[in-house]
């Protein structure tokens, strides 16, 4: 049986971090998500919510109802046995238009990576990505891992306004900006679908642990799907994957 060694880091008296490692790694992510699923299922008294990140799980708690020592003991028990991603994963097909002004940095990415724009698009849309975590903005999914040929540092001149739906890449990750925001990632395409809607529960389309594939669409399809989304008649394709 695999030994799961973790570090507990204190975050004041309302949260603690269960740290599995210090790097971005699928194996670490699966263990983080596995513990997250176990904590959610266990319904530990005083636990408010848990937040998975690349390599650690933050557990928020109410110090009037529980305390760190009791929580660490309970979590150690939940860590016993092999930890895997635990939940049934969903595979989403996200339509992306990589054309013209909907892909403002595509030519620049091609130049910097020494690839043609078609090759950049082919590589970006050929990978099945893993949603490591959601953060930075409501509904902003950090997805990896990018094809190594596409790895670039963040832009040296971040934009003050990135339009919602922008599909972006930086380092080993790809993401979609769910709302307008400042941002330093390279914008290689745009999706017509909405990734975040506070009127829905859960508010984000994607959850940590989900899988995502991008499907290249043309401008006509982009306009059609956008109109369907506004009418509320578009359903993003997805299916369950075996856990």
């Amino acid at each position, binding site marked *: 049986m695999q030994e799961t060694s973790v570090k507990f*880091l*204190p*975050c*004041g*008296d*309302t*949260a603690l*971090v269960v*740290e599995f490692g*210090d*790097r*971005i790694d699928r194996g670490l992510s699966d263990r983080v998500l596995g513990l*997250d699923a176990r904590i959610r299922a266990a319904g530990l008294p005083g636990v*408010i*919510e*848990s*937040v*998975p*990140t*690349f*390599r*650690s*799980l*933050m557990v*928020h708690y109410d*110090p*009037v109802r529980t*305390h*760190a*020592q009791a929580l660490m003991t309970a979590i150690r028990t939940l860590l016993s046995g092999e930890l895997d991603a635990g939940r049934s994963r969903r595979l989403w097909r996200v339509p992306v238009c990589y054309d013209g002004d909907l892909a403002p940095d595509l030519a620049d990415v091609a130049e910097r990576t020494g690839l043609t724009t078609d090759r950049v698009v082919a590589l970006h849309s050929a990978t099945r990505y893993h949603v490591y*975590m*959601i*953060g*930075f*903005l*409501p*509904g*902003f999914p*950090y997805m990896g891992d990018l094809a190594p040929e596409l790895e670039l540092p963040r832009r040296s001149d971040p934009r003050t306004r990135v339009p919602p739906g922008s599909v972006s890449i930086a380092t080993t990750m790809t993401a979609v900006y769910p*709302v307008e925001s400042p941002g330093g990632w390279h914008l290689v395409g745009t999706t017509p679908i909405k990734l*975040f809607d*506070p*009127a829905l*529960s*859960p*508010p*984000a389309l994607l*959850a*940590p642990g989900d899988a995502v594939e991008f499907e290249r669409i043309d401008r006509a399809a982009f306009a059609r799907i956008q109109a369907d989304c506004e009418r509320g008649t578009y359903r993003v394709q997805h299916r369950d994957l075996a856990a």
Partner: protein
Amino acid sequence: MSAALAVVAAGLHTTVQDRGRFGYQAFGVPVSGALDVESLEIANRLAGNDPDLPAVEILHLGPTLRVEADSVRVAVAAGSAEIEVQGEPPASLGGWRSALLRRGQVFRVHRLGASVCCYLAVEGGFAVEPVLGSASTYVRGGFGGFRGRALAAGDALPLAQTNAAERSELALIPPNETRGDRLIRVVLGPQRDHFTEAAVQALLSAEFLVSKDADRMGLRLEGPRLGHRGGWDIVSDGIATGAIQVPGSGQAILLLADHQTTGGYPKIATVISADLPLVGRRKPGDRIRFAAVEVAEAEKLRREARAALDATIASMAPPRPRGGLDLDRLHETNLISGVVFDQL
């Protein structure tokens, strides 16, 4: 006719907040909620409410509001904030108390003084649709509270009740203002080991100044440069409210209610929950000193703070006449007969 408070002047940043939006941080949704949850709870209790009801959070400068309901019971808590009813002359009703106002009366919340924030609660609460289980406004995300934004002149903030209940008013003895310069207690970590020993010593011995760069997301602090050990970026992890993160500049940022759920800067320490209301009250130009405690001590201090708040709430009583006069009766008399009286 629907009951509302009409916004005559909005103040600087006036938003609807409750205790926060929990359960959605895994989707990147910040908790938001009141910067000073203790004063929010007191304002709600003075108004006769459950502590979970939304109230109006006022930052820096209070709004002017007009009552568009048969009657409404209002209460203000935190700092030296007072309710002043327009008239000739205006009538100050004080703070840390409830008061009954009637249709057409115009009042403002002013003299915030030592605290950057205060809370205006109304009996029955405000009638705003909860978003993801909370009425808190998250302005950057454009959702929650009143249309996802700060109040503006011309808005009509809907009230859940059209009439105030028949009962006497409630008041508290204002808590001691000297708490404004109390030491703020922190637990070191989660990334203490990303900082030099000198940085930890500086955090716990130096005086920090709250810079002008201060809002509901956090307070940028001016003070000694806090040096990192082995780089200033980490693989993003979760953030707790009260975390003190230190980017490459070495200048600390104390994260408050609207902070992002995750981030890639190391966090040298985290303010304990018992002291979060105290930092929520700090404003640009205020000074902060930190002291370290262990987690178990922080948990004990939180339970003591809860007990102290319960005792404060239990001490609510009908307001004593000020200067030997019954302010409420005088105020009513003034409204009815036009008798002029000096501010008491």
